[in-house]
C-alpha cells in the first residue's frame, strides 16, 4: 500500500508510468496540474482510492460538482500523507 502524489499533467511521462503501476489498496492524490487527469472518465480505470486537492481543482476553473474523485482540503491532504509511510511522488 502506498500513497501516489500526481502533480503533472496528462502529457508527463513520469505520471503515466506511476498511474500504470498503482494497486487497489493504494491512495492517489492529484495536486497542481495533476488535477487534469481527473476531468475525464478514464480516471475510473486507474486503480486505487483517488482524491483531488479542491483548491487546485477550483482554481483551474472547474466546478466542485464536476469532480470525478473526492475533493479534499489542505488539512485532509496532510492527514492522508501522515497516514501513509510509503510515498511515491
Amino acid at each position, binding site marked *: 500500500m502506498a500513497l501516489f502524489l500526481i502533480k503533472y499533467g496528462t502529457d508527463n511521462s*513520469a505520471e503515466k508510468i506511476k498511474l500504470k503501476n*498503482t494497486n487497489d489498496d493504494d491512495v492517489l492524490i492529484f495536486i497542481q496540474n495533476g488535477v487534469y487527469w481527473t476531468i475525464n472518465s478514464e480516471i475510473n480505470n486507474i486503480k486505487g482510492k483517488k482524491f483531488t486537492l479542491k483548491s487546485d481543482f477550483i482554481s483551474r476553473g472547474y466546478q466542485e460538482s464536476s469532480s470525478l474523485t473526492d475533493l479534499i482540503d489542505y488539512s485532509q491532504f496532510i492527514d492522508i500523507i501522515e497516514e501513509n509511510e510509503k510515498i511515491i511522488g
Partner: protein
Amino acid sequence: MDKKILFVVYQSPVGSVWINEAFRTAFGMYGEDIEPSVLLIEEASVGLSPDTKPETLGLLPISMVHRFVKRYETSVYGVKEHCEKYGVKNIDENFSAKILNESELNGFFHSFDNVIFM
C-alpha cells in the same frame, strides 16, 4: 534497518541535469541509514548508453558518476522497453545496471519506502 529510497529519472540527460543530480543526491545519502537506488526510465534511458556524451555540448558528463557508483555499489536500473524505445543498443558496464521489464515496475516501486521522480 536501512530505509530504501528509489530515485526515478525520466528526463533526457542532454538539456537537463537530472541524471547527475539523482546520483549526486543518492551518493549524499550513504552513512544516513538509507539505501538509495537509481532507475532511469523513458528519455533518461539514453543515459545508460556509453555513447551518450552531454559533455560534447559543454554539459556535465555522466561518466563522472561511474567511480562513485562502483565505490558505493549503488544499484542502477533501466527498463527494457524504454531502452528499446529510445534506441539504447548497449549498456555502459560501469553502471552494472539491472534491466527490468515494464511489467515488473509495479512490484518494484512498492518494494521501496520512498520513490522520488526527478
